[in-house]
């Protein structure tokens, strides 16, 4: 019964006819990330059908998907995988499961914080906040530094004018 419920919930939240998947694997063949997934997209569909909620919410695949929508465009049954991945990501955070790839979550949070503060995204302060969250000061600090040196990122953020309205929206949304 729990299996049926999980399938029905994911289908409702994503609007996708996941029950139609018959494992042709077209999605996985075109997926740019599949080789790094723990479960390729066709397997994710099967796992949703089988109600394997815990395994899915703990999987790396849901955080590696970049929503390029190649799979969804090619599926013969009209299933878009990207919304399914989005539903699973949201369920992971909502249910307090530790994400298999916490750095992606930190990145998305830094991005949202930048909008909250400036109304716009400012790459330099966003990357800094992301670095502080992950406490990883090597890696792509290199990326940030290179951008500065080539003058791609201005040092100070340019703010939107109507910041109060943005702050209100964030307050109302409880984000």
């Amino acid at each position: 019964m729990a299996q049926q419920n999980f399938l029905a919930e994911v289908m409702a939240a994503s609007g996708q006819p996941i029950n139609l998947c018959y494992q042709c694997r077209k999605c996985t063949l075109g997926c740019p990330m599949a080789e790094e997934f723990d479960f390729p997209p066709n397997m994710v569909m099967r796992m949703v059908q089988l109600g394997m909620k815990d395994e899915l919410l703990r999987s790396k695949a849901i955080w590696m998907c970049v929503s390029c929508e190649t799979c969804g465009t090619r599926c013969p049954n009209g299933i878009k995988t990207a919304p399914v991945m989005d539903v699973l990501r949201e369920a992971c955070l909502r249910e307090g499961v530790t994400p298999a790839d916490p750095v992606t979550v930190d990145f998305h949070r830094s991005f949202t914080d930048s909008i909250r503060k400036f109304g716009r995204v400012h790459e330099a302060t966003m990357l800094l906040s992301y670095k502080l969250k992950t406490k990883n000061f090597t890696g792509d600090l290199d990326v940030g530094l290179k951008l500065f040196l080539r003058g791609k990122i201005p040092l100070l953020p340019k703010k939107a004018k109507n910041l109060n309205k943005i702050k209100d929206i964030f307050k109302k949304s409880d984000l």
Partner: protein
Amino acid sequence: MKYPYFPGCTLYTKAKKLDDAGRECSRRLGFELDELPDWTCCGATFPLVNDYHIAMSGPTRILADTKDQGGSQLVTLCSVCFNVLKRTNVVMRTDEERRQKITDFIERDYHGEVEVLHYLQVLRDEIGFEQLREKVVKPLTDLKVACYYGCLLLRPVKEIGLDVMENPTIFEDFVRALGAEPVDFPYKIECCGAFQVVHSMETATRCSRDILANARLNGADLVITTCPLCHFNLDDRQPEIRKGDPRFQTVPVLYFTQLLALALGLDAAELGFERNLIDPLPLLREKGLA
């Protein structure tokens, strides 16, 4: 003709040259990009969960602002902004229930009245590629160009509607109008690795390598794109790709507006190529374009 224009955050920072060249070219082609007086981030991601609406509040405000200023169209240059604004607009037009929730939330009245256009659509549908060809002052003869579409400019096809999915041609037609030669390039719609570059550089390096090697294999002198993130990955990953494969030949990556600017007679020295990691100037000098 005057079009309301949404530049987006990155066109003020990292992708300033996409914006600068786009504005200058519009002047030379006889249309005006009229920047919205105040705008915020589009959110850069379209929310795919059915009951998740907050991420659509940003783009809806932008669209409602456009409408309130009397605009019936909104032009963008960035693939990401284009994708988010266009898809949000589809929801506002077609999904009564979600529209109600979002407009109540942001306290604005908007029903999807504005038409979201990519700059390429203005060139194709409003100016016309034939007319564009007549305005070219320096045809890009002998230049072989790989037209890289990436994901967000095209997919999902039903909502975006810019071109077909598997073999789009708008970019190639654009390049031909400038007098250059588009190369056959099967990787033109593959993903560059997108934001995965932030925490898994290897992923972005692998994806970018496949795309660039395929462009080279098919004889491309350079690659063009509309997307700041694709530009970053494709340009910036090249030293790393070379480390892994010394035979890899680097290839310059340009914004499509920079290529347009060259053909319309702007000086290459003004196009900000010093910001490119792989310098296109030696190639452009060799072809007599700089």
